[in-house]
């Protein structure tokens, strides 16, 4: 086989340094290796780690820019308290006073409203120790409401083991990306896709708007928002009709394969395709490509996990025989974390009876909506992290005014910080020891790179302090001799709580040897096996396949909404918030300062809007002002905002013009009845 030998690279740092630390970038799920060069404890240079098997010395913009964030003037330096968002903040010299106050306020809320009045939001920025700490705390406290935007319905998460490491994509004949734009969100992983393409792999992309990833595709089309899984269903239907699936495999792997097949035979493909807004031919062409070029590697974005019919992707790779072969399989982005139940021991000792069902952010929306309609007002207190109000809590923002207590654990003085009663300065990932799972399901133990300033504390410190004050201290026993949280012991314990990860331990992860750095979960330690990862895949067992959705019965969008608010509003997905979500944003200085709305040229022209105009973005509940940007990447019926507005359907018009006129123009343009 002829091969191309890449040019020899000459890495290194020219800056004077007295220490060099190898670590793993935690800005996204690729987990690139890098070397941080330090002088007197300060980062002076960051270079990719040449020997890292996934990143090969490369990094993306976020991977070198994080050091700038550590010393950002926007960091929250001290815990603060304010009576209400309108009052000026008071600073505390230390955390302890702040935690005392938080504990007292929480108790008061519980006495009046019960423990379930507490909602906890866990941002990826806060780290896994905050998340696991929160889960455990919630169990002790007695609230089921812990949100992590990366949590997803458990069934698939637990079961699907067809993941590959991204360099194995080189062996794919075809890579299909659905709703995913790794060129913007996971650039280093995308490097492997381009390399595969150079070797002849076909790249197909389906997304709601034109993306950087799409610009490199061999075959691509755009679909309506939230219809990604419908594309999967339509593809599966075509593959079933043509009998392209592997009869032997579905019989062996699927429970009740006959009714599964039957459900697809009955499926109403016309409605499914109508939902997606593309033509039959495009979907058929894509199906043909996938049959011609096998195995196919499917890569899907996290957002798909929250839509109906998500399981279709896993079912598809199993039915087509693409799973458990190199170069094939299903790779859901940002889903590399196993589900670990950190409250088992508490429940079994009878301290708690709350269940472990995952409480996702759509559930939170429902919960708050219930409060809206006066059916019980469940939530009175929120503990949150990251800039959640501008992110996964955006749809809940309007409820925040009525809350008795908002406590914020975060590194920056952002919008969320400014509406909170209590705010606690958090350490960022380079300032703490972290357990980390990459998209590839690699388990990492990444030590801190720099020492945090005195007031920057970890999530474990936060929960432990709170637990101590509320009498749950015995359930957070991971302390060092100096009575500080022992992250290593805690994470070791977390890993031991799931059979998927219990074979890991810190000694193995810390050994830092070349073999230890790419061990994925589920992991079975067995020295006699050369390729531990392959051997650790569980023996294929029968699974419940995902059936065809009854499309005839699914109503489209809420008809009222689509009548008065004709445009779909999209924004960078929750998961990529901490990332540079879009290729345009890199150059726009401080994303998040204002709303920036992209419109299709035709839509803009009919409304008389030009780039730079101030426009109103009008939703069912909210109107915001935004700067218009005309851009062909956005399809006609959609507008794209740089940040969430808390709406999904909107009407857009120029400042000073009438909304009725705009509505009738848009209806005509989009041919709405």
């Amino acid at each position, binding site marked *: 086989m*002829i*091969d*191309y*030998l890449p*040019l020899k*690279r*000459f*890495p*290194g*740092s*020219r800056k004077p*340094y007295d*220490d*060099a630390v*190898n670590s793993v970038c935690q800005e996204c799920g690729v987990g690139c290796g890098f070397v941080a060069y330090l002088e007197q404890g300060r980062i002076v*240079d*960051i*270079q*990719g780690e040449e020997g890292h098997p996934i*990143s090969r*010395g*490369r*990094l*993306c*913009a*976020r*991977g*070198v*820019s994080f*050091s*700038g964030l550590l010393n950002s003037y926007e960091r929250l330096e001290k815990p603060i308290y304010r009576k209400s968002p309108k009052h000026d903040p008071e600073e505390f010299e230390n955390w302890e006073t702040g935690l005392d106050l938080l504990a007292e306020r929480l108790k008061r809320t519980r006495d009046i409203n019960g423990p379930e009045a507490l909602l906890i939001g866990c941002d990826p920025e806060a780290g896994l120790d905050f998340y696991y700490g929160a889960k455990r705390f919630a169990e002790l406290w007695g609230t089921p409401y812990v949100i992590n935007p990366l949590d997803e319905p458990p069934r698939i998460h637990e079961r699907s083991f067809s993941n590959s490491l991204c360099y194995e994509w080189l062996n794919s*004949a075809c890579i299909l990306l659905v709703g995913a734009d790794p*060129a*913007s969100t996971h*650039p280093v992983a*995308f*490097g492997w896709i*381009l*390399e595969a393409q*150079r*070797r*002849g792999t076909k790249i197909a992309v389906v997304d709601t708007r*034109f993306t*950087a*990833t*799409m*610009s*490199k595709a061999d075959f*691509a089309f755009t679909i309506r928002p939230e219809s990604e899984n419908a594309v999967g269903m339509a593809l599966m239907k075509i593959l079933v009709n043509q009998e392209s699936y592997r009869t032997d495999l579905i019989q062996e792997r699927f429970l009740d394969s006959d009714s599964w097949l039957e459900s697809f035979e009955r499926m109403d493909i016309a409605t499914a395709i109508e939902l997606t807004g593309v033509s039959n031919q495009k979907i058929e062409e894509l199906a043909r490509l996938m049959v011609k070029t096998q195995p196919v590697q499917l890569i899907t974005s996290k957002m798909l996990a929250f839509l109906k019919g998500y399981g279709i992707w896993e079912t598809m790779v199993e039915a087509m025989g693409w799973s458990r072969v190199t170069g094939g399989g299903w790779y859901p982005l940002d889903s590399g974390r196993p589900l670990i139940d950190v409250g088992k021991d508490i429940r079994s000792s009878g301290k708690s009876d709350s269940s472990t069902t995952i409480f996702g952010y759509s559930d939170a929306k429902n919960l708050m909506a219930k409060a809206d309609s006066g059916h019980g007002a469940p939530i009175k207190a929120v503990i949150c992290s990251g800039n959640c109000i501008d992110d996964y809590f955006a749809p809940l923002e309007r409820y925040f005014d009525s809350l008795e207590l908002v406590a914020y654990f975060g590194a920056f003085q952002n919008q969320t910080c400014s509406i909170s009663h209590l705010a606690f300065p958090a350490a960022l990932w380079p300032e703490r020891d972290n357990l980390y799972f990459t998209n590839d399901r690699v388990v990492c133990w990444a030590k801190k790179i720099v020492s945090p300033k005195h007031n920057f504390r970890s999530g474990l410190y936060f929960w432990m302090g709170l637990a101590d004050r509320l009498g749950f201290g015995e359930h957070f026993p991971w302390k060092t001799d100096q009575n500080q949280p022992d992250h290593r012991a805690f994470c070791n314990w977390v890993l031991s709580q799931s059979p998927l990860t219990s074979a890991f331990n810190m000694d193995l992860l810390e050994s*830092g*040897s070349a073999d230890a750095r790419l061990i994925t979960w589920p992991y079975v330690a067995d020295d006699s096996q050369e390729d531990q990862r392959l051997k650790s895949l569980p023996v294929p067992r029968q699974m419940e396949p995902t059936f065809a959705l009854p499309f005839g019965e699914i109503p489209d969008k809420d008809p009222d909404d689509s009548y008065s608010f004709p445009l779909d509003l999209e924004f960078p997905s929750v998961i990529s918030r901490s990332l*540079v979500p879009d*290729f*345009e944003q*890199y*150059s726009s*200085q401080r994303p998040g300062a204002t709303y920036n709305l992209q419109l299709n040229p035709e839509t803009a022209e009919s409304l008389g809007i030009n780039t730079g105009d101030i426009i109103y973005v009008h939703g069912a509940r909210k109107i915001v002002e935004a700067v218009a940007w005309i*851009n*062909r*990447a956005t399809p006609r019926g959609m507008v794209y905002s740089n940040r969430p507005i808390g709406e999904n359907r909107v009407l857009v018009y120029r400042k000073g013009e009438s909304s009725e006129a705009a509505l009738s123009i848009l209806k005509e343009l989009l041919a709405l009845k």
Partner: protein
Amino acid sequence: MKTYMAQDLEKFDGSDGGQVLVAVNGKVYDVSKSNRWGKGLHMNMHGAGRDLTQEIRSAPHGLDMLERTELVGSLIEFQENYSESSGSVMQKHKNALLIDASLCIGCGACQAACTLEHELPEGPLTFRIIRLGPIENADNLSMSFMPTTCFHCDKPACVAECPTGAMQKREDGIVFSDLEICIGCQTCSIACPYGIPVLNPAIGKIAKCDGCKERVELGMWPACALICPTGAITFGSCQTVVQDRQHREAVRLLRMVQIR
């Protein structure tokens, strides 16, 4: 301080009872006086006269191992952009930064690396990614990215117009502004046909690609080339990068006709 190449270092392994040198993190230490290092072998594992950066990271005592040792120089990897001629006088070769726009995804890593390397504030763009599109192309859209930085022109207009002589062209072709002399008048920005030099508002002087001249001198690739996640930027002697490009293309064509 002296600079050593890996092959120079090998002579100092202490086997002849002479000086014992080891290299860690690009620095060369004289460990002859350390009793831990005995006859050039430390704990019978780490041989002297070698680069021990990797080993030392897995060593229990890390860098303390080099206590009571003396820093004597820095280590240079084999450098293709230098050639030895007439004794120890090195001559600079011309290098090329080759940008393959077809691989660029507009991620901006090159700019971020440049910003860190040159300690620039947020704002001045030394490595611009020009996005072309999306434009309509048949019934599809298409879009491409054009990474653009200084061309280090043969007859640089910026150098010709610079009133202070800060902007200059080095022997190896690199065009850079000497910031000690630069007054930030931005005449070069106007003179440059591509508008490459920009003002660094933090120091009131010019920010422009300086070819990572200091890194290149140490034998390293420029920061942007190393970081680029898709390999769109490569670096080396003019011959190497062109050959690499040819090779890459040839392999791609061969693969097209071959059955994979």
